[in-house]
């Protein structure tokens, strides 16, 4: 692909929400997520010559967004759960068009996802945010399908366990 500036801008606008959301769910910090997402698109601009189609671009963006977010966590040795409180407050200000309850429940789900170990989190984010199949996730994360399926199962078990206590607490607060 050899798009001009206008076409590249179109690609950025088309995929910015996806790339930013993957980074945000992996990192739990809007500032860091924007930095990583910008880097992903700058890298895309350099790599476009090697990408053959729109589908290839989508696959590449998901893979690079997941890998760069993981790299960021490894480099900074970040544990997103420590930032969950701050992130919740920021996030609530940015989400429009949803009722307070929906935002609160959604935010708690996101906090729970952020508290998962990184390997499980990336599989869960790609499965439920991007609605990808285990096969697609395996290709994206360059992992065996069995590993992805096991990570998804373990992630779900942990999330269900957390949801049991967190959502009870939420109902009491309301």
């Amino acid at each position, binding site marked *: 692909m050899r798009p001009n500036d206008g076409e590249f*801008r179109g690609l*950025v606008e088309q995929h910015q929400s996806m790339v*930013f959301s993957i980074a945000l769910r992996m990192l739990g910090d809007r500032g860091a997520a924007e930095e990583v997402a*910008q*880097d992903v698109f700058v890298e895309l*601009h350099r790599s476009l010559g090697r990408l053959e189609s729109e589908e290839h671009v989508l696959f590449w963006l998901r893979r690079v967004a997941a890998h760069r977010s993981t790299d960021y966590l490894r*480099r900074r040795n970040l544990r997103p759960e420590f930032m969950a409180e701050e992130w919740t407050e920021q996030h609530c200000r940015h989400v429009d068009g949803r009722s307070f309850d929906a935002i609160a429940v*959604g935010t708690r789900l996101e906090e729970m996802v952020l508290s998962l170990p990184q390997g499980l989190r990336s599989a869960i984010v790609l499965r439920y945010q991007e609605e990808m199949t285990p096969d697609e996730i395996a290709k994206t994360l360059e992992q065996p399908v069995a590993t992805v399926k096991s990570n998804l199962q373990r992630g779900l078990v942990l999330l269900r366990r957390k*949801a049991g206590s967190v959502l009870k607490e939420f109902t009491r607060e309301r």
Partner: protein
Amino acid sequence: MSDEFEQELKEGLGRVPAPEGFADRVMGRVARNERLRFRVMPQRVSYAWQMAIAAMVLLAVLFGVGETVHRREERRRAELVQRQFEVAMRVTGRTLNGVGERISRAGMKDERGEQ
């Protein structure tokens, strides 16, 4: 099969909009030909390579174990042959002693006969 909880996850983890002006900032960086802010970590070792490396390590370990077992077996055989040789030498020594004694006894009888 997707249950109610998974459905809630899908709804709760929908995409969020990128920050205002995101595309402008990306285009600005592209126009300035800016470097990546974060160094790209070395390429992950692919699953195929991991398996190949694991297979090579396994083969090396198996070869090492096989070689050790083979050497131990050879040493055991050599010790057995050595013991058999020593026994054979003792038996031969004893036999030769017996033969020597018999010859000396026969020699003494002959001397007495001649006298």
